[in-house]
């Protein structure tokens, strides 16, 4: 299929709306994307981007507004119809069939067929190999999709889109879970697709990527369209101001706290192949940032310290008392709380209510004679939900239906309700919007101010530098630097994280 000349309007949504019951997910979304360009779509979580993507993909039907493709009005009832019209969506976490081969994943539902409906496996295999050769990625088309990294899964989605000759590609936060190299690879591919004359929509919370990759940018806020500009005409500050509708000086509201005695003391913690001789202290009132590249072993260290994972050697102490290995319940009793990175998988019971989730870790304390009264649960949950400003109409809402930011607040509420002395947070603001991010930061700062010892893992450098009193850098399972707030420059942290200075590790 020949793609239209660059600059043709490929995708045009005007004032589309969508409500679910009483919740307005999208009040008036507009988006115009031309061929041969990469269009950034930014907005806080809950701004309506995902709803709009789902309308474009044919997963939802809009309640109002117009939706046109290459000048023709369309009304997709199924994702299959949208796909046939040339729309492909690459989701943040692609949904592949884990049991089936990579090739089958690419061609599912439209396999080339010979006589008697027999699938032409050879043709399929040849085309899959050609696609990967063209994308320049070494993925074996015969392997099962199970076990592929998220980056590779996205590549498969892109290969699928190319083989479908999709004219419009929507990338919904594709880089959120990728490492630096993977992001580069994805961006190279995105540029190549643009140069072929396809229209791309790129959704991301990371402005550095948006500004280096995209040509045009549309901002959304509260389910409505805010602005569209050429990327050269705006600055990050402009965009951020439009996103939140206010200035963001309060993004890192670090308050001074009185730093007391050592609360958490990790010494010589080792697990073969993952981390070695980790020494780490966190004091009362202190926020320690644990920085490093994705995969450096930071999460593994804190999980071992908390007792979720085993370790080979070393000790963990809280307030001078030894924390037994492999026993998270003991860790909780001794006053450690761990807010995990993957809140949907490890932090929440998605099918349970907000109340149940918040009181999950303190059910024993709330129960009388072994019985748990819902009154006690609701009272506790209400306190914490209001303190953390969980945005919901009722606490009976299922946790799975909340936005990312609100889910994170529920997880935090759950752990804060255990009244810990040490709070470990693993990527506390991943995938949540700017406004909620600031709220989480303010909360962490407050907690430190009240004397809690906070250990924060973060891959976002500004977050680490903005929040931490002390930055500990991990490189391939070893601590390579420990920097005070005033010495922690972006350069110093990056050097230590990549271990580019000094060969000894």
């Amino acid at each position, binding site marked *: 299929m020949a793609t239209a000349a660059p600059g043709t309007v490929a995708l045009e949504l005007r004032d589309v709306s969508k409500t679910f019951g009483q919740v307005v997910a999208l009040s008036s979304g507009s988006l115009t994307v031309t061929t041969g360009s990469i269009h950034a779509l930014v907005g806080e979580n809950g701004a309506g981007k995902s709803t709009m993507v789902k309308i474009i993909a044919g997963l939802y039907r809009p309640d109002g507004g117009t939706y046109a493709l290459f000048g023709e009005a369309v009304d997709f009832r*199924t994702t299959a119809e949208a796909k046939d019209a040339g729309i492909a969506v690459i989701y943040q976490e692609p949904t592949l069939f884990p*049991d089936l081969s990579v090739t089958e994943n690419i061609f599912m539902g439209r396999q080339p067929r010979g006589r008697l409906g027999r699938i032409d496996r050879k043709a399929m295999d040849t085309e899959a190999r050609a696609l990967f050769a063209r994308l320049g990625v070494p993925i074996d088309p015969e392997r099962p999709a*199970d076990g592929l990294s998220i980056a590779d899964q996205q590549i498969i989605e892109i290969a699928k889109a190319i083989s479908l000759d999709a004219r419009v590609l929507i990338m919904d936060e594709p880089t959120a879970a990728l490492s630096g190299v993977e992001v580069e690879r994805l961006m190279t591919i995105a540029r190549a697709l643009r140069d072929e004359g396809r229209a791309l929509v790129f959704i991301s919370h990371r402005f550095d990527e948006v500004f280096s990759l995209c040509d045009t940018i549309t901002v959304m806020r509260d389910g409505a369209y805010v602005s569209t500009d050429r990327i050269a005409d705006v600055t990050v500050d402009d965009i951020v101001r439009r996103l939140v509708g206010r200035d963001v000086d309060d993004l890192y509201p670090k308050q001074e706290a009185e730093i007391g005695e050592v609360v958490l003391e990790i010494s010589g913690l080792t697990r073969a192949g993952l981390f070695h001789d980790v020494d780490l202290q966190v004091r009362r009132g202190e926020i320690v940032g644990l920085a490093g590249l994705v995969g450096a072993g930071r999460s593994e260290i804190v999980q071992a310290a908390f007792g979720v994972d085993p370790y080979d050697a070393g000790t963990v102490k809280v307030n001078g008392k030894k924390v037994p290995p492999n026993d998270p319940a003991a860790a909780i009793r001794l006053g450690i709380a761990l807010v995990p990175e993957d809140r949907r998988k490890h932090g929440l019971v998605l099918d349970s209510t907000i109340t149940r989730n918040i009181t999950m870790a303190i059910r024993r304390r709330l129960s009388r004679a072994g019985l748990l009264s819902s009154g006690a649960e609701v009272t506790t949950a209400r306190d914490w939900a209001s303190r953390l400003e969980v945005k919901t109409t009722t606490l009976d809402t299922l946790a799975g239906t909340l936005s990312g930011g609100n889910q994170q607040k529920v997880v935090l509420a759950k752990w804060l309700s255990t009244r810990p002395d040490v709070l470990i947070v693993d990527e506390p603001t991943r995938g949540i919007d700017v406004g909620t991010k600031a709220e989480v930061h303010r909360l962490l700062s407050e907690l430190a101010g009240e004397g809690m010892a906070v250990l924060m893992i973060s891959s976002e450098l500004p977050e680490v530098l903005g929040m931490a009193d002390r930055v500990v850098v991990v490189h391939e399972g070893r601590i390579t630097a420990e920097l005070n707030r005033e010495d922690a420059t972006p350069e110093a942290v990056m050097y230590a994280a990549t271990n580019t200075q000094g060969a000894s590790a």
Partner: protein
Amino acid sequence: MSTATPTAPTTAPPPPPTTGDRVRKLLQARETGIVLAFLAVLAVTTAINPSFLFSKDGWRDLFLTPSILVVLAVGQAIVIITRNVDLSVGSILGLVAYATGRMFVDTGLPILVVLLLGVLFGVVLGLINGALVAFAKVPALVITLGTLYVYRGVMMSWAGSDRINASDIPSGLLSFGTSSILWIPSLAWISFIVLAIGAYLMGRTRGGREMYAIGSDPDAATLYGLKKTKRTLVAFAASGGLAGLAGVLYVARYGTISSGAGLGIEFEAVGAAVIGGVAIFGGSGTVLGAAVGAYLLMTINRGLPILGIQDFWQRAVVGLLIIVAIVLDKVLKDRQHKKLLAERDAE
């Protein structure tokens, strides 16, 4: 790690597989293990009692006993692959067998027409299951547990204390039921044909592959725009139709149909599929594996008395086999998953 290490050989673009790769893949296939287990049981039992294999009856029973179960297991595998289960197949078998018998008693329809009507009846009963699962969105386990009782109840109230006797069945059909073609019982040939068609449809056509996809990840299937409702209906219709065919074969083989026909055989069908490597959570396994599972199950059933194992231990052995198969599958799957993750780390 993402730092620039020299590319390991494993990350080079993999060449298309050679014949050697294909052979290795065949040897590693889950079905191969079941075939070996089957051959082992056969060898041990025959060593103790040579007539188990090397007698006319032994040879015939080897193929005849599993043939009805093979038909059911193929249908069951199809349903399980779509991440469903059909517990009503025993009742469908019984109901269709009784209906077929009644048609012979009450109508003068030609044999072939009656048989076709029987299979068709099975398809209808399967479609009822499929429609309830696809439209009411209730788990198949619950729906088919319900229809297991409903279909059996219909049959019992229809039959009462009545039963169909061999004298009511056309002698042509009965002699077909015991006949052989090329030293293999005719019923076994029918099960082979069913197996071949099932294997072709599940392995080589879009419809079959989409059923795997739906079972592997239903949400992904929605995003892919696959016709989930249609495929679910087809899977249950196939299972019902095959249960109907099994009912017809039951008539041909036994001639006598009481209200207990096919009672409990659904568990053997599920067992055969699971032993044969069909993952209970859908998405993987083959109808061939399920068929071999049926052979293994029935041959063990026949072999245990010869090995001097007491009657009531036989069921325990079958149960153990199912548990071992599931645990083994889980272990192998976890190992493969870990291996794939390790390969990814190595990159």
